[in-house]
């Protein structure tokens, strides 16, 4: 029976630079809480104030048994909101979802966003997620890809992983909730 609540499952705030952040993913999770996406609820991921040590692409992956899945099975499409004009991306068979290009805290070029996760716990289904963001990219532009992705592997995903194309994540808070 639905309770009508948003329940926090996992959270991690970067205090020293790290190569990646895992929410959920059991014992691989960054928080050390050893929690996973293990129910059939809709989950929500929130990240904010995310910066990198160098200009870098900010990536999102699903985890399988605590490990970020790097197989070429991410299909995503989004609309890029930017004051300089709108753009569109449609990508198939990628090894991640490319959320944004971010940079140093001193540049005020950061990532913020919310993603909703669907079917992650179902081994007979594909894992789907949507994302909405409000960022400032490495060009100093207000920038926000808004869209969704499907991981085209029919298996359960137990968490999510955030990482960069290069360098380390130096700042940011990442939190996983479930809607019950």
């Amino acid at each position, binding site marked *: 029976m639905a309770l*009508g609540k948003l329940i926090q499952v996992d959270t991690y705030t970067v205090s020293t630079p790290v190569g990646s952040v895992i929410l959920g993913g059991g014992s691989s999770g960054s928080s050390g809480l050893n929690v996973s996406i293990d129910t059939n609820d809709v989950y929500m991921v929130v990240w904010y*104030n995310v910066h990198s040590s160098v200009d870098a692409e900010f990536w999102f992956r699903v985890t399988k048994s605590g490990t970020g899945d790097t197989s070429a099975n991410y299909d995503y499409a989004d609309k890029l909101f930017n*004051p300089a004009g709108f753009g569109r991306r449609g990508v198939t068979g990628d090894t991640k979802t490319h959320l944004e290009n971010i940079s140093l805290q001193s540049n005020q070029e950061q990532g913020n966003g919310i993603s909703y996760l669907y079917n992650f716990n179902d081994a007979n289904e594909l894992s789907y997620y949507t994302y909405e963001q*409000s960022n400032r990219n490495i060009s100093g*532009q*207000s920038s926000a890809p808004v869209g969704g992705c499907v991981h085209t592997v029919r298996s359960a995903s137990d968490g999510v992983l955030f990482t960069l194309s290069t360098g380390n994540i130096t700042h940011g*808070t990442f939190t996983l909730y479930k809607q019950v």
Partner: protein
Amino acid sequence: MSALRFIKEQEISGTTSVSITDVFSSDFDVYCLTGTNISSNSSSHDNVQARLIDESGTIKTSSYDTAQQDGAPEAAISAILGTNASSFGLGSFMTSDLEPESLAMTWWIFNPYSTSSYTYAYWQGGGTLAGLGRMRKGVGVLKSTDRITGFHIYQNNTARLLNSGHLRVYGLSIN
């Protein structure tokens, strides 16, 4: 207890603008603001804009970058873009019209209270005006590290009043 925590509600009645103050604090970093059942006193629909309020009570009127899409069933989707603008953009809180046509919006706001970060937001909502549905989705940033504590909406045409509705603010708890 749910992680989404109710903070404050502001009723709207017969005014050209509404401020909901003292809602952003050190308690939370991420906030959800909703506007529901907001109508004006005029059948000549008008754009409603959004701004932020700093801790001294000053409504911020510059340094907004914004990108919005306006969706209408009778026309192609149009863009509303701006840099260093005076608000989050024309119609960033939708378009008001006479009851029963009303607007509803949901905003997510990041880092408003921080003095080391700009304040970021994204929003979406819908309404009806002149008998037709309308959608608006947007993103934006206030390029200021001033401490932000409140939110402000206003009619573009000050001859028209916002007659009814509610603003509610929730904080997203992170433990």
